[in-house]
């Protein structure tokens, strides 16, 4: 039986005891999937799963507090669920996790580059690890490894780390993450870096899609970015303000970010926001040998300490 059919069956089995199950369905065009909230068996029939299912549905979990929620997760998404449970932001009994093995999702940006635009996509279909897409009258075949999201190329957790129901055969492979992208960026001079962020932040709209798409940004309606008291940020649309918000976002995620990349994916003007969070994760890994969202009972590194820190040499300056 196809993975999708198995998944549908399992969801239908559990649906009576759940208020809603979150998955994906076909969106407004063949390339776009969109979150699906399943309440009835007919809803379940609309479920899809392919590398086009890019959304991390865990972002919706804290908004459904008090409900019995089922959620379909890929490996990366499952880390967000683990992290939320670890921080006691979810009640374990209220969440039913349908875990999947995943070989990677697409980056719509990369497809956009390959096709020269996403405006006129007539059809898109995955055939194994190839995307057959026809757009603006031309047909193209794009191998998944060329259009996969960057996070997939360094994925260490293809299979859901946490699941009440696991569907399909686990993927064996696991890549290494040596944070080469962060290293490369770090090699630039501070001037070059500042110029890079200035150019990127200039087009920020302050729409807060990055924040709202983030599964770990749980303050939502009560974010310090919009608070007047304390007055962390003004309403000026200067680069400093916008950029400072990204620093707030990154630091509030320090030791918590599961690198799902939703911030970057959600940004309507394509600002590479994940880099900031990955830099912090890289340091947290080096300093405290810790990866967020991998163990439910682990203590987050910034909520604990050691009297003698092995990797911090604060007297050396």
């Amino acid at each position, binding site marked *: 039986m196809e993975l999708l059919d198995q998944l549908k069956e399992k969801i239908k089995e559990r649906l009576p005891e759940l208020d809603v199950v979150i998955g994906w369905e076909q969106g407004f065009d063949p390339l776009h999937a969109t979150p699906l909230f399943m309440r009835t068996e007919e809803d379940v029939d609309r479920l899809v799963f392919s590398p086009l299912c890019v959304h991390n549905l865990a972002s919706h979990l804290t908004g459904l507090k008090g409900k019995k929620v089922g959620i379909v997760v890929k490996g990366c998404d499952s880390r967000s669920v683990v992290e939320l449970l670890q921080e006691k932001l979810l009640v374990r009994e209220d969440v039913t996790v349908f875990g999947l093995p995943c070989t990677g999702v697409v980056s719509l940006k990369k497809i956009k580059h390959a096709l020269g635009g996403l405006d006129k996509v007539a059809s898109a279909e995955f055939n194994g690890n190839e995307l057959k897409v026809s757009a603006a009258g031309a047909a193209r075949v794009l191998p998944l490894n060329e259009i996969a999201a960057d996070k997939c190329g360094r994925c260490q957790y293809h299979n859901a780390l946490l699941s009440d129901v696991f569907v399909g055969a686990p993927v064996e492979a696991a890549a290494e993450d040596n944070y080469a992208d962060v290293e490369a960026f770090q090699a630039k001079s501070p001037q070059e870096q500042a110029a890079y962020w200035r150019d990127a932040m200039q087009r920020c709209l302050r729409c*807060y899609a990055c924040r709202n798409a983030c599964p770990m940004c749980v303050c939502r309606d009560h974010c310090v970015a919009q608070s007047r008291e304390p007055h962390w940020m003004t309403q000026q649309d200067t680069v400093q303000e916008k950029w400072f918000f990204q620093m707030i976002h990154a630091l509030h995620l320090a030791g918590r970010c599961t690198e799902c990349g939703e911030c970057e994916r959600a940004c309507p003007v394509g600002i590479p926001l994940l880099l900031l969070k990955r830099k912090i994760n890289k340091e947290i890994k080096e300093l405290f040998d810790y990866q967020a969202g991998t163990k439910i009972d682990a203590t987050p590194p910034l909520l604990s300490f050691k009297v003698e820190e092995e990797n911090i040499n604060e007297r050396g300056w």
Partner: protein
Amino acid sequence: MAAKYLKKENLVSWLQTLAKERLTLVPRREGDAVVFRPFAPGQDIPLDQQATTPPKAAVFPQCEPLLAFKYAKDPENPGKVGVQVKEKLGDTPSVVVGCRPCDARGFLTFDRVYDSDRASDLNYLTRRRNTLFATLACDEPASTCFCNWVGSGPADAEGSDILMVPVEGGFVLEPVTEAGEKLMEQAPLEDAGDKAALAEAVKENAAKALGEAPDLSQAREKLLSLFDNMDFWEGVSAKCISCGACTYLCPTCYCFNITDEQSGAEGVRLRTWDNCMSYLFTMEASGHNPRPTKAHRLKNRVGHKFSYYPDIHDGHIACCGCGRCIKSCPSSVDIRQIVLQAIAASAASE
């Protein structure tokens, strides 16, 4: 002046001429986005597709200082503190070249609000009167385009000063307003000749490609009748993440916030974009929020555009059909679907 032909290779020289007198905003590629920026020679001008952001900021900046203020003690009477105020108006003559008909038409939605008998917004009007639009007609619609649903079309010249129709090798320029005609006089133009017919064909094909628009005449009443049906709104808003991407990318969303940003004894009063998808938008001083959930807020966004606004503005829908809210939504919320569902849902409940 009749329609004229501008060769593609002459576009830049025209822009250069325009830029001498006016702030000339053109599409520019920045990272993965296309945004409107002041024209700079030597830069690529991507005109092949709709820009990521509309040129809304040309007339309605994301943030504009309305005034600067300063508190100062009266030297004669130190107990008395006076405030000095200096108003600011943005009156730089500007022209936007290469926006789409929907983008230019978006400001008509603004005009009915900020330039009416009841209210006239000086800051808005000053910019509005100083900004012209040389609009590029669309030759092929995107999957998210629905300008024909809201009473417009891919070659709608309403709201523009010049309509540029893309044809082989260049553009056929049609003057729409007198001001537009003056801008055209500065361009190295040729007689349109047989290109005029080509332009007509482009317009016709684009309109045809958009297909039939559904009848939205019922939307006004139907959306109102669904006002208290929160089940409906919770259903359609479930996947919404309540960010402001849709509203900030919308050429017709005109809401703003005013804040004083003060440092010590001096500061500025700013007007900044605000959006109804934000929890704080309707937060009252008492702590009560009439739109506490994203369902309430999405209801407002859709309702305002397709029902409440048309209700008080002669049936004009406050949406230009550009589709950016669909295209750039992190969750692919589709406003077209919501409107159609609303029409169908209330039909079913009747």
